[in-house]
């Protein structure tokens, strides 16, 4: 392994976590794309621990990788790690979440605030601009804070819609189920729930089923396969903000490749977000547009 041919490039990746499907898909995108160019990728995950993420970047520097991809745990804090890489003249790319300190070659991401807005607009539409809404939140991460910020911003424009609960489901399905049950208990008239990721939304869906509530609309985020399936089955989960994590992954590798080849690259590449409901998914299935 040590005497690999000169040409083989090594790319170090530090993900925010592997506990969420989103990053599994992003990782997959990176792997498949990198395999095409025969790049070697070293993938680690910080599991929401910034200190660990910085250590991982430092380990990459010690290894002398050719490029580093970071999905920052925190936009600012990761700066010290990035600066270490900058000092060692190793190019750094960020994916999904931006870094605000240190030099970044390129940032490839979908916009979380925009995604939150999409969810808000969708709910405003189906609720006909009035009703009560709950958020299954995970207010510990910049990305989810941004989603909720976008969501709240868009609903602020509709005085008829009230956010009656904002609870922490820790981004995992079992906790989300538990807190959603309590929210439903406290709000017999609840009209809609926004889950900051699909585990949160699906946990809410489990709770809704437990209480056999009808007339509730749930919107999720990420459009993971279980969520898509739930939407297609006509459950309370009606729509999902969709990002294209594997596309973020593959785009990142493509950008790095351009960099290796000496081509010029932009400082940021937006990857589209969208909103899917059962109609869109249905069409996509038949045309194969959202195949995963």
């Amino acid at each position: 392994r040590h005497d690999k041919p000169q040409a083989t490039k090594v790319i170090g990746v530090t993900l925010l976590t592997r506990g969420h499907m989103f990053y599994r898909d992003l990782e997959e995108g990176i792997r498949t794309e990198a395999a095409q160019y025969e790049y070697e990728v070293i993938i680690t995950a910080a599991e929401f621990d910034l200190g660990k993420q910085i250590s991982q970047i430092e380990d990459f520097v010690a290894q002398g990788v050719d490029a580093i991809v970071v999905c920052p745990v925190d936009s600012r804090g990761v700066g010290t790690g990035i600066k270490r890489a900058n000092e060692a003249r190793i190019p750094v790319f960020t994916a999904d979440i931006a870094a605000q300190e240190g030099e970044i070659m390129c940032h490839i991401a979908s916009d979380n605030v925009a995604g939150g807005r999409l969810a808000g607009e969708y709910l405003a539409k189906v609720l006909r601009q009035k009703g009560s809404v709950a958020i299954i939140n995970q207010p510990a991460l910049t990305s989810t804070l941004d989603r909720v910020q976008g969501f709240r911003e868009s609903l602020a424009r509709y005085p008829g819609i009230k956010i009656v609960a904002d609870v922490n489901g820790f981004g995992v399905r079992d906790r989300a189920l538990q807190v959603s049950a309590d929210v439903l208990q406290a709000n017999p008239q609840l009209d809609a729930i926004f889950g900051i990721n699909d585990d949160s939304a699906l946990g809410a869906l489990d709770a809704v089923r437990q209480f056999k509530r009808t007339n509730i609309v749930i919107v999720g985020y990420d459009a993971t396969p279980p969520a898509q399936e739930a939407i297609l089955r006509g459950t309370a989960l009606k729509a999902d903000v969709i990002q294209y994590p594997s596309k973020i992954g593959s785009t990142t590798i493509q950008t790095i490749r351009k960099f290796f080849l000496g081509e010029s690259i932009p400082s940021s590449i937006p990857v589209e977000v969208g909103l899917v409901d059962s109609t869109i998914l249905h069409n996509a299935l038949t045309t194969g547009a959202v195949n995963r």
Partner: protein
Amino acid sequence: MKNLYQSFGIGFALLVEIAIFSALSPHFFTTDNLLNVMLQISITAIVAVGMTFVILTAGIDLSVGSLMAFVGVVATSMLKLDLRLEYAFPLAMLAGLLLGAASGLIAGTLVTRFRITPFIVTLALMTIWRGLAFVYTEGRPVWELPEAFALLGNGRTLGIPNPTIVMIVVFVTAYVVLSHTRFGRYIYAIGGNPEAARLAGIGVKRIVTQVYVVCGVLSAASGILLASRMNSGQPNAGIMYELDVIAAVVVGGTSLFGGRGTVTGTFLGSLLIGVLRNGLNLLNVGSYVQQVVVGVVILLAVLLDQWKKR
């Protein structure tokens, strides 16, 4: 009777809590919500029974949360085998419970034969099972399960949620075992003075191993119920449950030094924490303030218990 008295301090705290929430929220003291609370605590309370056994022997089991996740994904993945449901279903249950027993057996063996402290054994297992759950599923949930599986955890029997029924059965059995059988007596003796127990002719290693197996099996059962409630196997289920469970056991009056404690106390402890979480959610208290409140209430409850003992 003695147990009831011993649990008085915490029982009082529970009553105060219930009174406060009943006053503050019209949604709290309703049959529906009380059943909801019972359902919510069922999963952790079942594990708490196993944890009580372990703690009574002066041990601890930090691996329960991870084990629940690992069992959940393994059992659900069995359901996806190309088998008829009549076969797949018992097979999945069996595999899950066996896995729990195996985990307990490993923990128990390392603790008794290799004399490693329970804390470190189960801390390592916690890491290992969680890692394996993710390796096994590649981080993705196991889903598209037969609807019948969801019934297990979401259905009701005689109006009572199934997990609650399981919990009640587990508690009653544990109560009888601890206070009326030889096995129970040995557990207390070992927790109180393992050397004296050994010299009294008790097979300390065997009993302690069995206790970890009991805890493993109960965690597995609980993990299966949890998976059923979500109708999917989530590798990230049960994170930090061990701490909730231990808190419930200790708040319920069981001593971490072993030899002292009851499952009645554990039940009340689980209820105290469960009611608190539920009530705070009903009152729409922000999650971080909630964390602070839960911490403070746990302290107050143990303080009260301590003060009562004076």
